[in-house]
């Protein structure tokens, strides 16, 4: 799951190494250097990958890779 999420995030950065070395506590925008507008695309990719719908209100709450992973796990369980 964690690896799948990183693979999605990796598409949106030139600095692939930062994402490869990411940890659950890594902040997607601040630590992984992702352009903040790309969060929308990451969420859409996550929805397609895991066949879930992410509520719009969650966008600001999913700060770290771990936040995203936990949210997806809660939706598919």
């Amino acid at each position, binding site marked *: 799951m964690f690896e799948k999420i990183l693979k999605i995030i990796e*598409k*949106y950065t*030139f*600095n692939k190494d930062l994402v490869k070395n990411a940890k659950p506590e890594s902040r997607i925008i601040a630590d992984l250097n992702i352009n903040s*507008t*790309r*969060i*929308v*695309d990451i969420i*859409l990719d996550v929805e397609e990958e895991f066949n879930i719908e992410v509520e*719009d209100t969650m966008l600001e709450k999913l700060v770290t890779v771990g936040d995203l992973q936990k949210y997806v796990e809660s939706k598919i369980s």
Partner: protein
Amino acid sequence: MNRKRVVVTGMGIVASNATGLEDFKNAIKDGKSGIKFLPELQKLNFGCQIGGIPNFSNSKYIDILEKYHFENAGQNVKYSCLAAAEAWIDAGLTIPDPINSETDYDTGVIIGSGVGNIDVFTDKIYPIVSQGSVRKLRSHTAEFTMFSAASANIALILGCGNHISSNSSACSTGAESIILGVERIRNGLAKRMIVGSTEIASPYVWGAFDSMRVLCRDYNDTPERASRPMSASAAGFVPSAGAGVLILEDMESALERKARIYAEISGVALNSGGQRKDGTMQAPGTEGVRRCLRQSIEDAGINAGQIDYICGHLSSTMADVLEINNWAAVLNRYGNDFPYINSLKSITGHALGASGTIETIAAIIQMYYGFLFPSLNCEDVHNKINDLINPDKIVRKTIYTKNINFVAKASFGFGDINASLILKKI
């Protein structure tokens, strides 16, 4: 302040008959047409069922589209970024690393278009928004639909920090983009300007012209014969698409870094006939055109007798006769004294806003490499053109010559807008 001299040090091209400078040079030299029958237009009941659509799959720079996530971009961003990458490398410059590089405040980008990124609206936005699924529009939708999308994305790749903008003046867009870049460098406001223009292939763009009956309908079975500038049987223009990008540079800067110099842009002029007298929204007025051509020659500081070759606008319509008449009158050169002339649109079709830069690149290639390409389908020269000039001055078979020292290139657009350039061999 003395104005700076402006030279061309790099070029890149995506055209209907070839992608990449070397292939384009060979294609125009051989008169290789880019016009094909397009079944989609037949299905949509177009009168004109032919056109020129570039194939860029063999571009040396194709990896850029994936690296910068341009998969979902419209044609304009794709065409112009491939052409800009080629032009930048051709100028002996290096594409910087996107992470570890600084802003290049000396270089600006002006890439124009006649109609803009319409394909992104028709192919992506309209279907998604119409279904009530607006949240599924991706974040890049805005950056691929804004009119400056091509310029902004080229600036992203190269880290350009000077003037970044996009111009539009119908079919004079390409020549205008070059002139805007020339003026900025002349005034000492930039060392380098990446200029050019791009246009998409789309039935939603071409439909407007088909309904006006200005596209060629008589040669759907023989597409390569359809674009016939200066011919008595010219029956309307053939639409096409693509992009041309040039690296303009302050001559001192080019010499300092020992860059290869293709040509100097020694004279420029822009104007409009104001849609008065015989000028209309669609037709260039005689007075405005002649004034523009004359001003560009004066700006170059040469006399009309020094022009060796004209790279015409010549779009295979009834306006071709008017254009020849205007050139002859402004230069005061008739019969055998008229310079050589040809029309790239006979080979590539009319790429609307992109035509001015694609044709300027063709003009520079010819002057630099010493040949003139054949203007196709002009076996039956129009009588009124025959009355003005010796028809042998229309290049109909490839001519090899090193004696091209000054070239005149003009473009004319809806809105009665004119743009003229004088190119000088260095």
